[in-house]
């Protein structure tokens, strides 16, 4: 079998007495869209934070593209090709849309210890940023400050920034949360287009989206993964139905 992009082995995390992730084992293979579902407070966001390194794991190990990253910092993991979007929108709010994307582009163009040449108008930044903005549909909004975008546009910008770093693994934390049906469909379309070209770990509450997009699904309940499998298997898994989906569907 192909080597996994991301491999978690025995990852555990507690906050004080509260065990939020218990012995998590998870594999993401190249090109797959892996969905992570679970009820509120199950530990999904925490698990993403453990993967990016924003939180240190209490025990267990992670490897990414074949190398052990357990001890690596957030920015080192990012440099190796990991990108994420946040459940709570996280942008450079006083920057324009273009500047947000360009800063992300800058991250993969070698050293940013460049002091003299203006970043504004630099074609090396402008061109890739233009492509990304066109792709997520924000080209017309390029000069608007991120703070002044609508919620839906901010979610698209989150996505654009993550894509601009050309990741091999994309972590998406509820990208469609709070979106109307139109924007939601738009975003699902974006994700669909990415499918196959990079590995994606998608946390999402919208079950229709999850079951139509995902290649495989893992179900997290109270910090443990109770099942992993193809959408059909998950749908028919009695344990999942009982613990999470509530009623058979």
């Amino acid at each position: 079998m192909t080597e996994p992009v991301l491999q978690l082995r025995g990852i555990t995390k507690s906050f004080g007495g509260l065990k939020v992730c218990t012995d998590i084992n998870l594999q993401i293979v190249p090109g797959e869209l892996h969905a992570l579902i679970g009820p509120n407070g199950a530990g999904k966001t925490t698990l993403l934070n453990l993967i990016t390194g924003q939180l240190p794991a209490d025990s267990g190990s992670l490897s990414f593209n074949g190398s052990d990253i357990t001890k690596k910092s957030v920015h080192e993991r990012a440099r190796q090709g990991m990108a994420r979007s946040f459940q709570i929108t996280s942008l450079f709010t006083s920057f324009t849309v273009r500047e947000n994307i360009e800063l992300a582009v800058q991250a993969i163009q070698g050293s940013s210890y460049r002091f003299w040449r203006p970043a504004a108008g630099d074609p090396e930044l402008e061109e890739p940023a233009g492509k990304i903005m066109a792709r997520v549909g924000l080209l017309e909004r390029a000069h608007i400050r991120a703070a002044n975008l609508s919620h839906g546009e901010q979610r698209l910008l989150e996505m654009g920034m993550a894509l601009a770093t050309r990741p091999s693994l994309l972590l998406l934390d509820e990208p469609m949360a709070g979106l109307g049906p139109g924007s939601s469909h738009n975003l699902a379309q974006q994700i669909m287009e990415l499918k196959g070209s990079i590995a994606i770990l998608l946390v999402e509450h919208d079950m229709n989206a999850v079951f139509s997009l995902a290649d495989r699904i893992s179900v997290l309940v109270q910090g443990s993964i109770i099942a992993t499998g193809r959408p059909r298997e998950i749908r028919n898994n009695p344990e999942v139905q009982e613990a999470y989906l509530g009623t058979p569907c």
Partner: protein
Amino acid sequence: MKIAQFRLRQNVFCLAGLVLLALLPWLLDLCGQQYLLSLATRALIYGLAASSLNLILGYGGMVSLGHAAFMGIGGYVVGIMAFHSYDKIPVFGMLPQSTGSENGLLVWPLAMLLAGIFALITGAISLRTKGMHFIMITLAFAQMVYFFFTSLDAYGGSDGISLYNRNTLPGLDLGNDQVFYYLCLSLLLGFLFLMHRLTGSRFGRVLIGSRENEQRLQILGFAPFGYRLLSYCLAGSVAGLAGVLLVNQGEFVSPGMTHWTRSGEILVMVLLGGMGKLFGPLLGAVVFLFLEEYLAMYTEHWMVILGPFLILVVLYARGGLYSLLFDRKGNHD
């Protein structure tokens, strides 16, 4: 259209301000108010110090309450070198005396270097903390510097050192107040130009990004620490230069220059003028020093008047006076 209007107004004001600064010595001569030149020079020097603080505070989001320490280090390098040249004693028993210890080409870069090294060491420690901790730690380092200079009995202890003359620079008579004014103005404008380029560069975007959203910056693959530390060193060394100029102007240096209230004043100048705006801190320094001068003529309790004024500006104009003058309400596009 509204935005274009404000831009135009800003450019006109800035240009007028620059012309005024350039012609000031001549204008003061014309109306026989030469005594104001020393106040104006001081405003330029504090403008330089406040601008350097603006780099780390306004663009980098680092609230330092110890900026006067760098000025003090710069100033004491001038004072100590001069002291040795008068007494013909080798500096620290090592450096041979007499050669160039009053030469600005030697002393000034040395002062900036030492202030920069101090910034490197203290920055490497304090930048590991955030928010209130960072404020307190920069304050603590500055107080250490203050007590260190107070304890230097060989150099006048808390009384400080008086200079007999200003440093020398080839081709410039720094003893002439007008020449000295123009030197300060050139150094200030030079630094502002440098800062303009720096904050608009790729480096500057990362620095501003670290102020805006550190989490996002890291997840993009940047380590903010190095960008912050480098800005901190540059700011420290330029504040050291401001200290050099201040001591040359007044021909006197004492530990009082590094007291935390001085750091507080520089911080207030930045907030008053407008942090994160290139010309904001210069405006803040000018307004602060002139208010201080004129209010002090009417009452010794001038702080009672200045204090509430500052609070009003900081509360109602978050971008300082600069935004009050030149930005549309809320500063949005």
